[in-house]
């Protein structure tokens, strides 16, 4: 792990085959492939998946893009479904129905709708019970599969199809839920929040830790959606960089209760830098709406300070 090289890990066989039907430039598949690269060669995996863009586009009968065993059950139960699979593994091993030297890892993917909202109970239950699995949320900040409806992960003021900006509306009225912190409060062995960096080292290392730490682990990955966020598709890496440099999307881990910041911007940029390139925040830049950006900035600052405090303890 210390000798991480992007070139080297990119040479590993792909575990999500090309030919799936996700949009060009979709952040979710970039995130999924990066997580799967952290699996050690020779280790098998069962991949779970909540209903969402990823599921309907990657396993459309009779084609699957998944090289590993894969199970999609429903929207709200990816946590419970994989906890059943993981328990089956335990019992098959115990009863000698799986060879001793066979190692399976359990990773389930859900979008923010399937994770923060409808699948929250199922996720919380699975984490609390301590199943040896990783729940990966690919957080693109709205119900993108059904057409960009707000979720509890949607940033404040975002223009979505159920919180449209209008003559008397400034988009979503509420702040977003801090799910990584909530799962950390379940006292699971490992929680991390990450996104794409130029060398993908942060994501890779966190995914590897999550997969190879015994017990429940949760990984929250910001995966931009060009359709929902309305930025120029090739700009994905610029958008992500702005999210972390404005401290909108802090990168951290909570390893056995110890909070650690894994990236601190040299110069914290104002939140406008992140908001401006995205069509979903266009209304914030109309004259007279400066106070909205100020409120957004104040909340980002408050959360960042809070995180710094947790990490300094």
């Amino acid at each position, binding site marked *: 792990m210390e000798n991480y090289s992007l070139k080297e890990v990119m040479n590993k066989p792909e575990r999500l085959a090309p030919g799936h039907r996700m949009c060009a430039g979709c952040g979710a598949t970039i995130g999924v492939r990066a997580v799967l690269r952290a699996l050690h060669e020779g280790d098998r995996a069962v991949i779970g998946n909540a209903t969402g863009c990823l599921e309907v586009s990657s396993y459309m009968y009779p084609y699957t893009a998944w090289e590993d065993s894969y199970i999609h059950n429903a929207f709200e139960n990816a946590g419970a479904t994989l*906890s059943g699979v993981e328990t*089956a593994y335990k*019992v098959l091993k115990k009863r000698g129905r799986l060879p001793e030297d066979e190692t399976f890892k359990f990773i389930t993917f859900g979008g923010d709708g399937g994770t923060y909202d409808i699948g929250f109970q199922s996720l919380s239950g699975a984490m609390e019970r301590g199943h040896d699995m990783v729940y990966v949320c690919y957080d693109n900040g709205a119900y993108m599969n059904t057409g960009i409806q707000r979720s509890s992960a949607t940033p404040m003021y975002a223009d979505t199809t159920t919180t449209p900006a209008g003559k008397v509306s400034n988009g979503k009225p509420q702040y977003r839920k801090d799910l990584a912190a909530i799962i950390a409060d379940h006292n699971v062995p490992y929680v991390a929040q990450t996104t794409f960096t130029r060398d993908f080292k942060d994501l890779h290392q966190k995914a590897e830790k999550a997969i190879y730490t015994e017990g429940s682990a949760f990984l929250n990955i910001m995966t931009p959606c060009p359709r929902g966020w309305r930025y120029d598709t090739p700009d994905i890496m610029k958008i992500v960089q702005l999210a972390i440099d404005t401290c909108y999307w802090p990168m951290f881990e909570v390893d056995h209760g110890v909070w650690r910041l894994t990236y601190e911007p040299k110069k914290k940029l104002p939140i406008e830098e992140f908001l401006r390139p995205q069509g979903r925040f266009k209304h914030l830049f109309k004259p007279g709406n400066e106070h909205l950006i100020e409120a957004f900035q104040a909340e980002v600052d408050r959360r960042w300070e809070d995180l710094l405090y947790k990490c300094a303890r």
Partner: protein
Amino acid sequence: MAIKDRMSGNEAVAYAIKQINPDVMPAFPITPSTEIPQMVSNYIANGEIETEFIPVESEHSAMSATIGAEAAGARSLTATSSAGLALMWEELLLAASNRMPCVLALVNRTLSGPININCDHSDGMGARDTGWIQIYAENNQEAYDNFLQAYPIAEDPRVHLPVMICQDGFITSHAVENIELMEDAPVKEFVGEYCPEEYLLNPGKPVAVGPYSVSNYAMEARKNQADALLAAKKVILEVAEKYEKISGRKYGFFEEYRTEDADYIMLIIGSAAGTAKQAVDDLRDQGKKVGVLKLRVFRPFPADEIVEALKNCKAVAIMDRTESYNGNGGPLGSEVCAGLYRRKADVASVNYIYGLAGRDFTVNHVYDIFAELEDMVENGKEVEQFKYIGLRD
């Protein structure tokens, strides 16, 4: 050698689970089925079985985890009642459509509201079109025997569908009765080892479960599933025959009790059949030609066989322990009438709603019903075709 014992229906099912020693049981407590996961947890806590119990946070997760475990290659089950089954509804459909041969011990309890913990069949009947095989029991002996037959039916390659083993809440689940249990060895041999063909944890042979399916494929999947449910009819009878050989107890789609020459038949499901049989004995003593057809297998629905069993009687009382809110008939009433009509069987019928939310159903009700059928046929009395019995005045 049979073991003579006394136990409740919940104990009988838990004992069957112990003898089967399945792989994974996720469950969530709900009255009156709670005792089943409690007893299984005790067996586990004392090292009597190797089953892994998952104390899930809801019934939806119970069925979700059951599907996950079953798909992974583990023999899996859960238990529930009432609102628990209703919360599982989406997952019941997925268990069946993903062709998971898992088992659910259903202890029938009414659905809310008003909230009430007692028996009727609104939970099981609400799930009648989810694609599960449904087998109902009259007493603890049948609950035990049916449970032992569940996996051999579910796991048969011709079927590959989930099975719901139903018994009446409190009336059967909590009442202690005499029972004949089997020895462990013949049970083990009868149920056999679980050897799935394809499963998630099959090393080197990955599978994908739960696809998105476009219209070009989805309709064929439904038809295949419906065909498998129909194919289960043959398998249910084969398994019953094998079971008879080791237990001496005979099972079919239904039990015909004094129906061979009966003018009037009561078609009924579950524990109330015991009451009906007692009343039939009383009426037979008075020279009345009456009988009971106790339905055991509701899904797949044995329409041909029911019509065959009813076609020579003058009238049938079809007993539904649930309301369908359509003013036209309960689930059993509607399906039996459709069966009779399609097969041009000229049998008069009245569909009675009885025993909702634990309302007592007594021999007096049965006497009244048979008297009403006779009055209708012999004297031409007009009788509502769909009516309640046992309501307070």
